Each structure stands twice: as C-alpha cells, then as structure tokens.
C-alpha cells in the first residue's frame, strides 16, 4: 500500500509545473499537500493516479511502475476525488455513490451484497440520511453534493485515497468531522489530501508537503514544516506577513 513519485516532472507547453519531485506515501496518518493556486497540486495528484503521464520520472505502486497495472487494477486500488461538476442526468445520491465502485462492480448482474454494504457504509460516513439517498444529486446544495462525491470515493473501499480539496465547500463543523473520519481511515489506508486550509493541516496532518516553484520545498510533520518563513515562500504576497499563534493569519500591510 505504498505510492511513490520518483523524479516526476510535468509541463503544460513551455511552463514546467512539476520539476523532479520525489516522495512516497504510506498508511498511518494524513499527508497534506499545500501550495498556492496554480502551483501544480492537482496536476501532481493526477499524475499519481495516472490521469496524466509525467514528462519524466515514474510513479511506483508497491514498488512497481504504475503503468504495469491495468486501468482497472489501478482504479480498484486508488480512490480519487477531483473537483466534480454536477452531472447532467438525475442520478439519485445512492446511484451516484454506487458508481464510485465501477471498477469493482460485476457485469450483467446486479451489485452484490458487498457492493451494497460498501455504499451504505460510505453514505453513513458522510451522514446522508435514508430519505436523502433517493434524492437526485442535482437537487443538493454544493456542499452536500461534495459530500456525496466523497462518499462515492469512500464506497470503492480502496487502499489509497487521493483527495483534491475534499472540504472546500463545507462549513467548519462538517470540515472537522470529515477530517476526524479521514484521520481514522488513515490508520490503515494511505490518504493524501490537497487543501488550502492551514488550520486543518495543522490539526489533522501527520505529514505536510509544501509545493512551490514546481518543487517540494519542505516535507515533514506540520509543526516543523509550517513555519511563517515556509508559508511566505509558499504563498508569496508582497507586503504580507504571517502571524503565528493558535492559527495562521496572513496580514496585509495595513494590519501588520
């Protein structure tokens, strides 16, 4: 259950966004990837699950090149949550979550008991009531739909979870319980999270990677990595400083 990037590079045209990046992910705690907008966080995540092919380097799954696995074998082992637009068709929440198990569903047969139990567990995990499970996903709010998308990834019950901003539309209370749940999962699974929320990273991460200029500029426990100096390198805004206390605050020139 080990996923590793080895000297990964990637460019959009002339612009290099990932430059010889190496790290490995293992179970035993949440790993956060922090970086500014456009730093290449989502690109890196897509390379890890082979949605994008790196220009250089390779991704290793349990020590083997990820391209040696079939698309279905990869999909069974790596659950991926991306920014998901609302589907055009009126799938119910239950149907939508079941589709998260596409790689494991049988052909020409109804879903098995294990599939239905996995859907049930995933919907319970995101606290969707029985009545809401039959509602079309198009009639949920953005935050509710984001939890349904998360449930569809959890329903796969994969060994590795790659989550791109899983709580960006959640209120603070729901963000906290989702991360409590992910922390519990991370005891046995490899969970990799992209986030912009520094406070959540400080509270729940066991390891933080900082991505800037296409490189990992720091890698380690949050209290060692998330220093004001590093954060200013991560989010360079002229005239801004970082206040350190129980949480991080970026202060403009008027408040510094």
């Amino acid at each position, binding site marked *: 259950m080990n996923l590793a990037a080895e000297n990964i590079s990637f460019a959009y045209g002339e612009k290099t966004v990932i430059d010889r990046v190496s790290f490995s992910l293992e179970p035993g705690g949440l790993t956060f990837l922090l970086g500014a907008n456009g730093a290449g966080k989502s690109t890196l995540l897509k390379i890890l*699950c082979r*949605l994008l092919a790196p220009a250089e380097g390779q991704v290793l799954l349990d020590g083997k090149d990820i391209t040696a696995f*079939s*698309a*279905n*074998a*990869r*999909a*069974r082992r*790596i*659950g*991926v949550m*991306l920014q*998901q*637009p609302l*589907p*055009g*068709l*009126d*799938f*119910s929440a239950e*149907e*939508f979550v*079941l*589709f*998260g198990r*596409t*790689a494991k*569903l049988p*052909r*020409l047969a*109804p879903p098995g008991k294990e599939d239905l139990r996995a859907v049930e567990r995933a919907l319970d995990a995101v606290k969707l009531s029985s009545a809401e499970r*039959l509602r079309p996903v198009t*009639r949920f709010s953005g935050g509710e739909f984001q939890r349904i998308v998360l449930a569809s990834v959890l329903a796969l019950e994969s060994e590795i979870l790659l989550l791109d901003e899983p709580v960006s539309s959640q209120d603070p209370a729901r963000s906290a319980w989702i991360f409590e749940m992910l922390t519990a999962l991370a005891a046995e699974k490899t969970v990799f999270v992209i986030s912009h929320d520094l406070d959540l990273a400080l509270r729940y991460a066991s390891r933080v990677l900082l991505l800037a200029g296409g490189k990992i500029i720091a890698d380690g426990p949050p209290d060692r990595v998330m220093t004001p100096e590093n954060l200013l390198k991560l989010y360079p805004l002229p005239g801004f400083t970082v206040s350190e206390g129980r949480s991080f605050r970026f202060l403009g020139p008027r408040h510094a």
Partner: protein
Amino acid sequence: MRKISCRLLTAAALLAAAILLLASARGGLEGPGADVLLRFRLFRSLLGFLVGGSLALSGAIFQAVFRNPLADPYILGISSGAAAGAAAVFVFVPAGLLFLCVPAGALAGALATLGAVLVISGGGRSADRLLLSGVVTGIVVSSLLIYLISLSDSSQLAGVTWWILGDLQGATPALLAALAGLAAGILAAVQFFSNELNALAVGDEAAMTRGVAVRKARLFFVIAASLLASSCVAAAGIIGFAGLVVPHIVRLLAGSDHRRILPAVFLSGGCFLQLCDLTAVALSGAKETPVGVVCSCAGGILFLVLLAKRRRQA
C-alpha cells in the same frame, strides 16, 4: 420519490407491446385479402416497436455520453444526413427503384454524416468537440438537403416531404429481421458495457479514475447509438421526440442507473411508437396521418408535462 422496480417496468412494457400488437390486428379483417391486411398490420406494428425501441435506446445512450438530458438520436446530424441521402435518391433515381433505393440512400447519408462527424471531432476526443462537430455537420448537410429539394419537381418533393414526416408502411420480413438483429446486438453490447456508460455520464475525469478508457468507450457508444438512429431513419424516416422523451419517462419511473434501465427504455420506446401508430391509424381518414406527426405531438406534450413536474419539484 421511491422508484418502481425496473423489472416490473420491463415486464409491463413487454405486456403492453404484446397487447398493442394484438390491438393493431383488430377490426375490418373480413372478406378476401384479410390475411394480407393482417400481415401488413402486424408487420407495421412490429416495425413501430423496433423503431421506437431503437430510437429510445439511442436517445438514452446519447444523453448519458453527452451528459445532456436534451440530447436525442439526431443530435449529431444523423437525421439531416439521412434526409439528404433520401432526397438525393428521390431526385436522381427512377421512380420504379425508389422502394429499394430510398432506405439505402438514407442509410448511406446517415453513415456518411456519422463518419464526417467522427473525422472532424478527431475521433471523439472530447464530448464537447463531438457535439460541436455534429451540430456543424448537421447544418452543412441541411443546406445540401435544401439544395436537393430545390432541384426536385412536385412529385419528387411530395416523396421527400412524406419520407421526412416518417411512416411505418414499408415493413417487410427482411427489414424487420435486420432491424431486430441490429437492435438486439447493440442492446446486448451496450448492456454489457453499462458500467462504463454510467461512469461516462458522471464525467470524463471521474470515469478515468474508475478505470474506463474514456475515448474508446465514448467512440463505442456514439457509434452504437448512431447505428441505431441510422437504421431507424432508413426504415421509417425521421420520427422525432421518441428518442428524447422515453428515456426521461423511464428514468423518472425507475431511476437513472443504465445497468438496470436499458431494456426498459427499449421496450417502452417500442410501446410508445406502437401507440402513436395506432393513434395515427385511428385519426386517418381518406389520407393517412403520418406517425411522425402523432409521435412529435404526443412527445412534445409529454415533454412539457415532464418539464412542469421538474419545475414543481425544484
């Protein structure tokens, strides 16, 4: 809303299709030539069933592939291509050969349009590109149709117009067997890959993360749905709305999981067109009412009812 069982809907649609087939054979069958008339009516009802089912299945596939509930079997310009092919036959082929050549011309026009769409879109690289290529090709082919109409005399024009309205009178055992074989084969293949269809309906990236080879899958579904639509227009002209409305009704009743609903969509589409044809026959006086007219009218009304229902629920 709790959905009804898909098996129940499938069984009900199958029963309704059988009843409608029997209903088509009732009345006015005394005297000489009764057996010929009976065969004609049964074949016509069966053609309605196969065309309606194929159009509904094609519409359901296109709606999932394009993630667009307004997609119908003709979204890639297939109907314009078929109409141009049929019009070319009416204009350039002697009247005695029309019976054979019109379906062949329509099929050739539809398949040529599909080929052009696939080439222009780079093999269906993205759903948006495919859709745009279809719309543009449809417009170009429509202009060709208008040009062909401008070349036609009054009898040729009447033939083209009647064909475009859609009718089920050309049913023969060979045609029925060909349509049934194609529809059964495509239904089985699409059912086998229905997990992939569901994944595509959620989104390209989501489908890729679920192990689906998105480009190949999209190409397969687009070709399958287009073959269904092409065979229908070749056999019965352009019949609108069945492919748009029936998938909506089935989804409303039985849910949107394509692994379960595809057979029900096919059977319901078949019943819908059989019913429209019976209505067209009942409405016909000295001159026959085209089934395409009844189908578009009934489909339009049903679609408005669905829209109103959605608005109330929203």
